[in-house]
């Protein structure tokens, strides 16, 4: 039974504080995804959990055991390193089977498991190669293979699929999901891929600059981001923001308006607001619809046609840059004006401190 508990975990490299007090609770068998901007401390956190990085302050429990000073070997973890860290002198086969060899697994068991992993990772033909003879994505798969042949209590994955092609990535995602179900192990997973995060996670942890911003289920984070950072970070393309003024307060809504958007009543918790306050309204590019009678309009500045949808960059009257994702393939002229609308219940209002004011549910 290996849940994880992190209690105000801190990590500094000399002067630089990288992890600034992280509290987190991971249930046994949960699939937790860490997301956050580059350099925010995801890998560091993972490495602290693994026992590779000394903990500057705070407590780390694996199961019920305080593990600050426990050897990685005794923590019951497997890890995929962001940098792979394949053993250069071993073949793929040996790399993958190394952990089992150390655990003194019988040879036939090892062989079976290694071959099984190779099958899952679609690299059966590479087993005799040395890492130096592999492509980037192939190396990454070996790194995954090394982790999944073992049956630890906790899996740590650091951007394990970043160098794989889309199709393979989808396959691998499935396989990891399956593994998770089969083993019932706790998994902690770092990724920059929103789709991965959304589809795999039981729980997403959003980190920024060493601080946890929000913890929640994928859909919760998407629909009810706790603050501007999470709102901007989760969802791709990024949520559009615009500053508006509070016109009127309802019981469970506020009416806002501004240069770009006419008065619109948006569901929100008005408790901390008063009329005349400046707030930020956020709306996702996918929630903008082309409509001639829309409540806003922008000048098209860039059109990206992806096939099934079209990304349109817009310049609002206030000068703000917005993006709209329109269904299907649209041909739009640069410079033309595009009238848009959105459903008010899709919009989120943030106060001046950047905290989201979701309406009571």
């Amino acid at each position, binding site marked *: 039974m290996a849940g994880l508990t992190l209690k105000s975990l801190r990590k500094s490299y000399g002067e630089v504080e990288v992890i600034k007090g992280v509290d987190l609770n991971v249930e046994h068998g949960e699939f937790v995804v860490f997301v956050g901007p580059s350099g925010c401390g995801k890998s560091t956190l993972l490495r602290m959990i693994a026992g590779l990085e000394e903990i500057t302050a705070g407590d780390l429990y694996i199961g019920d055991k305080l593990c600050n000073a426990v050897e990685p070997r005794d923590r019951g973890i497997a890890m995929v390193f*962001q*940098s*792979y860290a394949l053993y250069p002198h071993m073949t793929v086969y040996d790399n993958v089977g190394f952990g089992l060899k150390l655990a003194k697994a019988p040879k036939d068991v090892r062989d079976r498991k290694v071959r099984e992993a190779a099958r899952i990772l679609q690299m059966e033909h590479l087993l005799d190669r040395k*890492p130096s003879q592999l492509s*980037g994505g192939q190396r990454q798969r070996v790194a995954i293979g090394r982790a999944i042949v073992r049956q630890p209590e906790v899996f740590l994955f650091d951007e394990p699929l970043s160098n794989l092609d889309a199709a393979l990535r989808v396959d691998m995602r499935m396989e990891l999901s399956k593994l998770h179900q089969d083993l019932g192990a706790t998994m902690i997973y770092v990724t920059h891929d929103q789709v991965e995060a959304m589809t795999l996670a039981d729980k997403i942890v959003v980190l920024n600059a060493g601080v946890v911003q929000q913890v929640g289920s994928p859909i919760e984070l998407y629909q009810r981001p706790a603050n501007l950072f999470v709102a901007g970070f989760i969802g791709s393309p990024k949520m559009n923001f615009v500053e508006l003024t509070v016109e009127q307060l309802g019981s469970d809504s506020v009416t806002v308006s501004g240069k770009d958007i006419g008065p619109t009543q948006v569901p929100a918790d008005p408790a901390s607001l008063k009329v005349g306050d400046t707030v930020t309204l956020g709306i996702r590019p996918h929630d903008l619809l082309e409509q001639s009678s829309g409540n806003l309009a922008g000048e098209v500045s860039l059109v990206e046609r992806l096939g099934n949808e079209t990304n349109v960059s817009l310049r609002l009257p206030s000068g703000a840059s917005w993006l709209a994702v329109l269904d299907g393939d649209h041909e739009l002229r640069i410079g033309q004006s595009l009238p848009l609308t959105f459903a008010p219940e899709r919009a989120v209002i943030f106060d001046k401190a950047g905290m989201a004011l979701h309406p009571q549910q």
Partner: protein
Amino acid sequence: MTKLSSRLIGLAAILVSAVVFLVPFIFIIITAFKDKQQAALLDFSWPNGFHLWSNLVEVVTTRNWMMVTAFINSTILTVASVTLLVIFAAMVGFVLARRKTRFNGLIEFLILAGLMIPPAVVPTIWLLQGIGLFGKLHGLILIEVAYGLPFSIILYRAFIATIPRELDEAAIIDGARPLDVFFRVILPLLWPVTVTNIVVQSVGVFNDFTNPLYYLPGNANATVQLTLYNFQSQFNTSYNLLFTNILLITIPPLLVFLFFNRHIVAGMTAGAVKG
């Protein structure tokens, strides 16, 4: 618990090293403290008087301060030849390790041959005389370079493999010429090996006495090892002075080692490549 055991290991290491490595050293020191009669006993007794200073004075002043000349000569010889040695050897090691051609086998054999065959002194002197380098310091410097090359090349060649080739490639793409690749990327990363080379070869050259004896005769050209002969002969040796001398000429290489030792650090290539 682990802390404790590592401390114990450390303590044990210090003790064992003291016995195994320091006892002979202490012998050298105490002999340097003795007078001639007591030193001649060559035993582990306590010096019956403090003669180190007079021994030192005698060692240094003997034969017109030959020791001082010798120190200067040896220092010049060592610095110059080790510098050349390190650069030349690293260049060879670099190309030899990186570029596979069908001549590699032959080249490696020739290099090994340098370790296997003792130098032919007399033909070498003829040759040096022929090219006008005999009895000249720079001639001897080149000799030391030639004799030291195989060792250094072998060391470099083996270690260049630990530097990811992609770094060369990145530098090449960045527009680096071979010399840039070598001096700005490879050589800095080989620093621990270079340190090893510097230390070992300095000791070798500094302590060399055969080559100066044959290739650079003359008092003005004495090197430190030759000063040992001031106190040592076939039939009669002043052990107190000999050991004082040994002690004295061991200090510079020891300082070199102490200085460079700190530069043998881990993690030179950390963060370079992914995979």
